[in-house]
């Protein structure tokens, strides 16, 4: 996994609440057997009309907005567990998602793909959305080590929480498999001492 330390970028505002993973990547694009190319279909049905024409009113099609940070409404990533949503966001170029609330499974999937979910207060989210919508050139800094997000133009800063273990993983580019494999002896000992439920035909 790629290391993540800090990042300063313009940001894309998507204020809608309860954005589910079916919107991030519709089910009909889940037929691939590798992780590549999902960015092309990110928010497919919001980016394009039913006849395949670009929907000019959707923020990703507005050339005023760009950047590696997506700022989205409350309860981002709810619904299906499809990790394809995290792959699509990452493949499109987003490294950070900011919201006032994340769905559990999405949050884990994002972290496992080096995409940082930054949870801020409702007030800070409102401030961010207002500012970046009005001034698309505004820059946002994300500092993982110090755990803060700063809206540069307003010098407004907020601190965010992240699990200490996950932070170490992101900063060093480690992932959970490396850690789990390092505990194999303990796992085998656990198995030896516990009766396991198996499919035993």
């Amino acid at each position, binding site marked *: 996994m790629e290391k993540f330390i800090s990042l300063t970028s313009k940001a894309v505002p998507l204020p809608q609440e*309860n954005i589910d993973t079916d*919107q991030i990547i*519709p089910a009909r694009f889940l037929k691939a057997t*590798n992780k590549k190319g999902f960015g092309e279909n990110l928010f497919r049905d919001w980016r394009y009309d039913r006849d395949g024409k670009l929907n000019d009113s959707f923020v990703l099609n507005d050339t005023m907005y760009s950047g590696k940070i997506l700022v989205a409404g409350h309860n981002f990533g709810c619904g299906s567990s499809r990790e394809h949503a995290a792959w699509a966001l990452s493949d499109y170029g987003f490294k950070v998602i900011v919201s006032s609330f994340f769905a559990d499974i999405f949050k884990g999937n994002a972290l*496992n*793909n080096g995409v940082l979910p930054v949870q801020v207060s409702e007030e800070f989210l409102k401030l961010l959305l207002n500012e970046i919508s009005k001034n698309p050139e505004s820059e946002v800094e994300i500092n993982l080590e110090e755990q803060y997000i700063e809206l540069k133009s307003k010098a407004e800063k907020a601190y965010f929480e992240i699990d200490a273990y996950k932070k170490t993983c992101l900063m060093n580019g480690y992932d959970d*498999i490396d850690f789990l*494999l390092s505990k194999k002896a*303990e796992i085998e000992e*656990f198995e030896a001492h516990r009766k396991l439920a198996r499919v035993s035909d």
Partner: protein
Amino acid sequence: MSKTLFDKVWDAHVVHEIEHGPQILYIDKHLIHEVTSPQAFEELEERNLPLFRPQQVVATADHNTPTVNQHLPIKDELSRNQLKRLSENCKKNNIQLYPLGHEYNGIVHVMSPELGITQPGMSIVCGDSHTSTHGAFGSIAFGIGTSQVAQVFASQCLLLTKPKSMRITVNGTLKTGVLPKDVILYIISKIGTNAGTGYFCEYAGEVFENMSMEGRMTVCNMSIEMGARGGMIAPDQTTFEYVKGRKFAPKGQEWDNQLEYWKTLPTDKDAVFDKEFEFDAEDIAPMITFGTNPGMGIKVSGHIPNQEDESLDKSLNYMGFSKGEFLIDKPINYVFIGSCTNSRIEDFRVAANYVKGKKKADHVTAWLVPGSRQVAQQIEAEGLKTIFTEAGFELRQPGCSACLAMNDDKIPSGEYCVSTSNRNFEGRQGQGSRTLLASPLLAAATAIEGKIVDITKHLN
């Protein structure tokens, strides 16, 4: 110390605890399907890792499979390739696969309980958010992403922070025409789509105690729709009777030992939950959703809320409804009875009981998709197939089907579908489709009448 059902099962599976960090949780059973597993197998190969415990993995093909002509080669190349990849991966790694056409094939959350793979006190995961279904047996069951599928492949474990605990108690007796689906749609409409985020939810009280296992599965299935990673119901006599004698259920002395353990699992009397909700069964009526998330539900005789809310406006705009509108008498062209929420035999019995001797409305396309081959056989054996066929319903072959429309079972753009599935998100049943979630009883009645009806009045 007093413990909850959730604490007992969770704590029994903790292998290691990182100070100020997550825990390593041991996974008893790992269910996989064609859509969320190929990249995990690829990951193992890239790292040159063996699959650690293949005998604890069970595979089925369900998300992407056609529901007609399953004996013929699959037309769609990408779908065919995904299923082929699943077969190859299972063969290579010695995983038991129930492929398309196998007598045990079916939706992962239908076939695993019916084979007795799902048992109380287990930890069960699957790359599918509706894995919460299996919590109906008093197991810890939850959906995971593909990176986690790879972690379980490699180590039979996951790194997790223990969720908080929540209890929803519903006491009293359900009214006629109120099904388990109505109970869970009611709960979600009351507490919202993220009330459960960060929690594992136990359902308690008379309503769940008196519910069948299939009903309990319907309830636990939709826990994720209120944000909860998992839902659980204490194992009791109903649970034990359901599990006993199934193909992979423990037998003989092993059964006796397990049973003794399972009986210790229910929540201790004075155990404390981080969050509690209580509802009264008498307040629950047949439900239907009007919007684009499962929390947007009302009783079928009620009206769409009338309030200032941007999300509500956007939803209603997509659905083509207005604030304050009643849904009764709305013409409907599509009805879908199926999905891991409502595709078990009891669901088809309820539907058949209403449909018997009637004909569907001419303009309605009514799809019935059983959750598994075994359910399909039961439908036939009990004579329900004849009832449905005579009524003009289309009984198809098992699979996830129009719940997520990955295969050809899509609802056309702009059309309404009264569906027994679990999600009414924009485009969930096909681009531009408009989903109204309901119970199999209300879905069956809609197909007959060709419009949404006040089912309570109908039954009286």
